[in-house]
């Protein structure tokens, strides 16, 4: 009896650790998402638009994860905006991120009137995935293609080293 109780305790402990680690993914329309593109603090934000089915997007995910790790103490925040859609998107996304060991913050953008918001992300972006916006206050750098770790570092350092 005692043994079973301990087992139960252990099992619940494992479950709770797991639930702490798996992030809860929130879904937004563009109006709800838009504030994350315009924070006016001294952090440099790296916002990547991607989807699970997009091969170049998935290829570059580890670069963003590395940036998140390498800049933890440097006022850099990585946010991965997923454009996935279909059945059980949140669950599929959570499983995918766990498998790929991506721990950067992920939000879902669910707003099918794309013409209305693509230009608000970046003037020069015409809607092809992947795309990445790196900004600090009003300084913005946009990549409308797959990006390398070195390009990310150069862009982040450029924004970070600018006088405020």
């Amino acid at each position, binding site marked *: 009896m005692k043994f079973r109780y301990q087992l139960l305790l252990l099992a619940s402990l494992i479950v709770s650790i797991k639930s702490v680690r798996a992030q809860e993914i929130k879904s937004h329309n563009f109006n709800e998402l838009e504030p994350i593109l315009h924070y006016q603090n001294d952090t440099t934000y790296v916002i990547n638009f991607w989807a699970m089915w997009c091969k170049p997007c998935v290829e570059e995910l580890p670069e963003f994860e590395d940036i998140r790790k390498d800049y933890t103490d440097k006022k850099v925040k990585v946010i991965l905006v997923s454009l996935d*859609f279909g059945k059980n998107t949140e669950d599929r996304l959570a499983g995918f991120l766990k498998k790929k060991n991506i721990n950067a913050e992920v939000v879902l953008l669910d707003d*099918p009137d794309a*013409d209305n918001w693509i230009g608000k992300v970046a003037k020069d972006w*015409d809607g*092809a*995935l992947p795309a990445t916006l790196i900004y600090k206050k009003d300084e913005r750098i946009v990549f409308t293609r797959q990006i390398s770790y070195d390009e990310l570092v150069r862009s982040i350092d450029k924004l970070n080293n600018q006088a405020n």
Partner: protein
Amino acid sequence: MKKILILGLFILAAMGIQAQGYQIGDEAKDFKLKNVDGKQISLADYKDAKGFIVIFTCNHCPYAVAYEDRIIEIDKKYKEKGFPVIAINPNDPELYESDSFDNMIVRAKEKGFTFPYLMDETQEVFKRFGATKTPHVFILSNKSGEYTVEYIGAIDNNYKDASQVTSRYVEDAVDALLQNKKPEITSTKAIGCGIKTKG
């Protein structure tokens, strides 16, 4: 002063590079591409067409898949009126196996495509058009073999759910052209899968 001038020229040159592809009002060049039935297709083959709905699309992209049924409906509706759909797969199949010519044949059969589904083998046509993703629409009008770009962008304003669409950009543009008017909306931004190319 000289430095500023040179810098200005550089910026202009850089802008020129960026502004590749057709703009509204440009004349589009004809092409010759292989269809899923093995035949070579050109715009010039369609002597009676008043214009064309050229759609860069593919097999692998969920946005393109979400629009397949709508593209068939558009073709059925407008082919008779003189605006057939011409679908072109611009992706390099070495980078996306599901976009190979053989898989295009399979997909066209599965879905019962009513329109040609062409392979941009050399990837020159999508570059000339300035297509950047799938799906990406270019509507052309035809005046005796002179093709003018009339609309560039998305099919409609809801990629997820055809029943929730409130603006049918492509249909509105073609309807206007059929009445010899210019489309009210000539360009929109479409979400899509970046076209896969090695260079």
